[in-house]
């Protein structure tokens, strides 16, 4: 709960992401930045909500790379800083993070990354960001629950400052989005004003880079010795079979042992880079078999295998041969793996239950664009104008265009990639290519790709879906909106002016609710054979509806005149796929509780769909 992030009580019910913010506030953070991305979004949103009151500078940056650089600037000037993003955000920021390990920081700097096993809110990959810590030569802490989110974040600032390097905190969806009771300490008002003091040590440049690299290895070795124990938890247990685990997997291990009524020795690691090797060696020495329980890749397992080779080659190691490598971990898998390790059977047949469940055959419910979503109208028009086009997708709500009935997303890769890939396709193929990108995503990663398209005489059509917000992650502002995280008025960066300044000649703004004009514009630009941009400008319907309700304005709902309804209209509505238009047993109606009154369906079936009287 947001209110509890600033609570003066001894404990509060906090979301993992909120607990990260609380930990930073207890450490006296002075500067925070982010680019929103689920499952990390609430870290930024919580900072946005409390920044003023807590005396912290906070910004939504244009992308994660800039966010990280900004946080580095603050830390170099002696102000404690935190930057947060989701897994793929770290990919964007990584070019700036690697050298920062060498450059070092003056005040504590914490980099929070939240991975998304099972891709609950991600389209691209099940990235395991733990591997980055090793190439970056940076320490990484892995909290298991909301309490550790707070405690580890707070401690990370101390470690960062002491060793003069940024510290990574790695979360996963279930840690970020767990609410739990968190014991709180006092919030400290930190420095938010600093000075950059010139010093030769900031000049990381060959040949010093090589000696710095050597020092980094030494720093990490010292850090493991000094801090390894603090972040390690040992459950004594009985027997010669034990478990090594980290992150959210630890909670499943504890629950699974209770369910199986066994008490095994458990080593729970909080510092997963550098690993506290001495502690692991000691733990392995007393065992005949060890089960490594970790989500996603065998990161711990590989290290443990190499440590075991040195100290206990005879030990039997279970890891990814007992726990899945893909998909998020659930307690069921851990119960199964511990059963295998101990031979103890679970009282309840999970396999039989699963079989019974699978027999249910439940209709799928895809996430969808909302009723009234301007993206749906744009997609519908694009398909009408050129159904055979290659449709290049990007990251945002509009990637839901991948689902039927629209299917106007032939592929999705990563932020900004619609343009780059569309360019490549149009260079080798004669097909018409239409790329879609959101407004916030365009500011984030779309501009260099557009310049490249101009520079290299490309001829695809780019449609910027300008819904005036960063919708999917929770309606954060972006540079085009004219207001920032602090609520200050800023000069809105104009999409139209940027596109023109890049040198695109075919450009216009079209209202996606005007299907006729959108279809005509798409046809016209495709026929021109030149690189073109349509800015499909219409505010996210959720924001419009919220504002209308707040101002006491009535949202006009639509209804279908069933006597007039034709098969052709039915077909169009099916192809349009608005969730408020429901078809059941041949009957089609608009659910007035769901209708957001955009009226686009009335354009598709004039005279048949009308405003409800």
């Amino acid at each position, binding site marked *: *709960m947001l*209110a509890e992030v600033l609570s003066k009580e001894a404990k509060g*019910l906090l979301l993992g992401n909120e607990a990260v913010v609380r930990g930073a506030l207890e450490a006296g953070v002075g500067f925070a930045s982010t680019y929103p991305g*689920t*499952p990390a*979004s*609430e870290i930024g949103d919580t900072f946005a909500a409390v920044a003023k009151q807590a005396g912290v500078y906070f910004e939504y940056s244009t992308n994660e790379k800039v966010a990280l650089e900004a946080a580095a600037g603050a830390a170099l000037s002696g102000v404690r800083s935190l930057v947060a993003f989701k897994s793929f955000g770290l990919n964007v920021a990584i070019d700036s993070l690697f050298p920062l390990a060498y450059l070092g920081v003056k005040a504590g700097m914490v980099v929070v990354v939240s991975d998304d096993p099972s891709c*609950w*809110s991600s*389209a691209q990959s099940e990235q395991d960001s733990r591997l980055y810590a090793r190439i970056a030569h940076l320490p990484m802490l892995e909290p298991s*629950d909301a309490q550790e989110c707070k405690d580890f974040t707070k401690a990370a600032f101390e470690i960062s400052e002491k060793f003069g390097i940024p510290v990574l905190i790695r979360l996963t*969806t*279930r840690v970020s*989005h*767990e*609410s*739990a*009771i968190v014991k709180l300490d006092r919030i400290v008002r930190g420095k938010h004003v600093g000075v950059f003091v010139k010093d030769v040590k900031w000049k990381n440049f060959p040949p010093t880079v090589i000696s710095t690299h050597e020092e980094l290895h030494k720093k990490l070795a010292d850090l493991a010795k000094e801090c390894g124990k603090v972040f390690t938890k040992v459950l004594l247990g009985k027997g010669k079979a034990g478990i090594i685990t980290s992150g*959210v997997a630890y*909670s*499943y291990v*504890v*629950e699974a042992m209770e*369910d199986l009524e066994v008490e095994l020795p458990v080593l729970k690691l909080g510092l997963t880079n550098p690993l506290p090797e001495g502690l692991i060696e000691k733990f392995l020495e007393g065992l005949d078999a060890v089960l490594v329980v970790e989500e996603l890749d065998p990161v711990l397992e590989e290290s443990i295998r190499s440590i075991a080779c040195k100290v206990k080659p005879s030990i039997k190691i279970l890891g990814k041969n007992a726990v899945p490598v893909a998909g998020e971990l*659930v*307690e*069921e898998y851990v119960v199964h793996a511990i059963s295998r390790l101990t031979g103890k059977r679970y009282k*309840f047949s*999970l396999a039989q*239950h*699963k079989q*019974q*469940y699978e027999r*249910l*055959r*439940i*209709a*799928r*419910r*895809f*996430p*969808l664009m*909302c009723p009234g979503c301007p993206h749906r109208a744009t997609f519908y028009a694009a398909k009408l104008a050129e159904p055979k086009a290659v449709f290049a997708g990007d990251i945002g*709500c509009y990637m*839901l265009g991948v*689902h*039927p*009935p629209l299917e106007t997303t032939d592929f999705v890769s990563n932020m900004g990639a619609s343009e780059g890939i569309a360019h490549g396709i149009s260079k080798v193929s004669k097909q018409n290519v239409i790329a879609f990108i959101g407004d916030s995503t365009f500011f984030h990663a779309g501009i260099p790709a557009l310049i490249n398209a101009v520079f290299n005489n490309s001829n695809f059509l780019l449609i910027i879906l300008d819904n005036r917000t960063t919708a*999917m*992650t*929770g309606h954060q502002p972006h540079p085009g909106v004219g207001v920032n995280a602090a609520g200050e008025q800023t000069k809105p960066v104009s999409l139209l002016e940027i596109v023109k300044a890049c040198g695109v000649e075919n450009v216009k703004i079209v209202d996606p609710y005007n299907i006729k004009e959108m279809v005509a514009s798409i046809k016209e630009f495709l026929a021109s054979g030149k690189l073109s941009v349509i800015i499909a400008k219409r505010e996210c319907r959720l924001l419009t509806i919220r504002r209308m309700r707040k101002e006491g304005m009535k949202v006009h709902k639509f209804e279908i005149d069933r006597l007039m309804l034709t098969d052709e209209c039915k077909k169009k509505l*099916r192809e349009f*796929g608005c*969730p408020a238009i*429901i*078809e*059941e047993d041949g009957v089609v109606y608009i*659910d007035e*509780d*769901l209708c957001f009154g955009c009226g686009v369906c009335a354009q598709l079936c004039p005279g048949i769909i009308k405003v409800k009287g």
Partner: protein
Amino acid sequence: MKEFNIVIAGIGGQGSITLGYIIAQAAFLQGYEVKTAELHGLAQRYGVVPCHVRFGESIHSSVVMEGEANLIIALEPLEALRACYYASKESRTVFVVDSKRIPPLSVSVCGEPYASLNTILKKLEEFGEKVFLVNASEKAKEITGTFVSSNVYLLGYAVGKGLIPLEKKFILDGMKRVLSEKLFESNKKVFEEGEREGFHGKS
């Protein structure tokens, strides 16, 4: 009580996470250990949004394990069926289900099946101890003019039936913490109507 496991099954926008927060706050105020697991982002756009709440003397994982739910509050019948993953005869799972159907697009567009309410009820009974079908959306709309508070109506119903080991005063305090003042008043009314129906209705 060692642990009590609730799964709230709903569709993005129906308020399953808000309901989870209310129950979690109530459990916290009543002195239990408590954890919730929720999903944000992509899933919230009319997709399946399950929210888990676990409370009791000692809670480690935020996620309810397969077959271990004590109570499933479903804001839509098909989602109740989907939540059967967490239900079992062994855990004596009880279902409280809003009867308002919201068929997913896969039914009209891909021709996937949406069984009748009766068939769904029968299947739910195979997975649990008892099923209560409640016209929560309709009732919430009668009281407040919108169906949005159907979640709180179902909560009231479950409390009236004695299906949640939490005291009413803590639930109301939880609601006060989670909802704005204006929403609290209307939701309190919805909750109490649900509670009344749960208490007097067929068991």
